[in-house]
């Protein structure tokens, strides 16, 4: 029996990626994709890769009843419309920041507050590598932020394997592609202005600092740069542990954490062209690559993490979590590997 699904915000970048994933997912049938601006137009008119889909956008005011509703709207929309979403669907998976943080204070400090703080305790953070045990049966699931996901997946093994305890200095230097900004975009997002950049776009105070702190229990010095790719987020974490850590300790921690994870892959040195995590190597897949080096003279660990922000960083993570929540085999619909060669994906 197929599970019906709708995508609110279907013209957007994450919405389009979700439509692609759900269309290829054997358990789901997409019955609705909403758009205010493109209502009645075919999904393929916006997403050329989906020209084969026999589906037209419809108005978000008229939500069909479905099993799962995926909300792919800008921050603030889901918290306002959450009751209507839950009326329409037994399970709501939200890709925005609206239900990601575990307490109202985070929204007071880093956003403009929250309309429905009482629901925050109900919501489950989607990242299975962190929160798998709480997802089965969850009916409000909040997919993580893309930069936060890259960072959390990179640093997680250091906590709980006696390497970090939370008070250490961590610098996270992130490089991201232009799809992070969504389909809207302004002058800075034009091809002429955005091509070839290494552009500091969030030097300090990025909101994902809060998400990382909430889920890893550590503060991080976070800076994000826009670089010339469309898909992809890459986090370089410069970590200063209190005590010396060997490469063997690191392998123990990372293999211990991730050996059985279907969507985390190690890339840490060795030969060839692709020695450490790279967005290029995971583009189009739900895989996160993680790797590291130790730097004894500087008493530093360097951890690299790379994801496709459209996949592990949003739509793929959402489907992964939905698979767990609904009891499907975890990797269903997410088995596609990346590509080689691939350009600036």
């Amino acid at each position: 029996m197929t599970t019906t699904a709708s995508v609110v915000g279907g013209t957007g970048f994450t919405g389009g990626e979700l439509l692609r994933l759900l269309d290829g997912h054997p358990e789901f049938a997409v019955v609705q994709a909403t758009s205010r601006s493109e209502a009645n137009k075919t999904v393929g008119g916006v997403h050329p890769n989906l020209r084969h889909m026999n589906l037209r956008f419809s108005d978000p005011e008229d939500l069909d009843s479905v099993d799962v509703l995926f909300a792919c709207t800008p921050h603030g929309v889901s918290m306002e419309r959450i009751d209507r979403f839950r009326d329409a669907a037994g399970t709501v998976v939200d890709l925005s920041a609206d239900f990601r943080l575990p307490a109202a204070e985070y929204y007071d400090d880093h956003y403009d507050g929250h309309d429905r703080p009482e629901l925050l305790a109900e919501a489950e953070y989607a990242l299975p590598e962190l929160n798998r045990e709480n997802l089965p049966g969850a009916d409000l699931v909040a997919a993580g932020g893309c930069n936060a996901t890259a960072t959390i997946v990179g640093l997680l093994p250091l906590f709980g394997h006696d390497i970090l305890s939370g008070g250490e200095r961590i610098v996270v230097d992130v490089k991201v592609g232009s799809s992070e900004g969504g389909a809207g975009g302004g002058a800075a997002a034009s091809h002429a202005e955005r091509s070839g950049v290494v552009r500091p776009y969030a030097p300090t105070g990025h909101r994902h600092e809060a998400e990382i702190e909430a889920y890893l229990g550590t503060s991080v010095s976070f800076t994000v740069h826009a670089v010339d790719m469309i898909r992809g987020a890459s986090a370089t974490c410069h970590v200063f542990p209190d005590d010396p850590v060997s490469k063997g300790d690191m392998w123990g921690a990372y293999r211990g954490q991730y050996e059985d994870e279907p969507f985390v892959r190690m890339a840490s040195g060795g030969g060839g062209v692709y020695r450490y995590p790279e967005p290029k190597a995971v583009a189009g897949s739900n895989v996160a690559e993680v790797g590291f080096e130790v730097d004894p003279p500087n008493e530093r660990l360097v951890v690299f993490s790379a994801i496709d922000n459209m996949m592990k960083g949003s739509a793929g993570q959402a489907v992964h979590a939905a698979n767990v929540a609904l009891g499907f085999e975890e990797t269903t619909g997410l088995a596609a590997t990346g590509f080689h060669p691939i350009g600036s994906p």
Partner: protein
Amino acid sequence: MVDCPECGAGVDLHDDLEVGEIVDCATCGAELEVIGEGPVDLDTAPELEEDWGE
């Protein structure tokens, strides 16, 4: 199902479309205007000579 005036392919539509609404043809992409309801009737939409790209 009604035929696209541009390419001749069948266009799948709801029946509750209203006159004046714009849809596109899934085969040729043409923008089509609903000119009659129940059953829906379509005509090529007046082309917006928009600047498209450069």
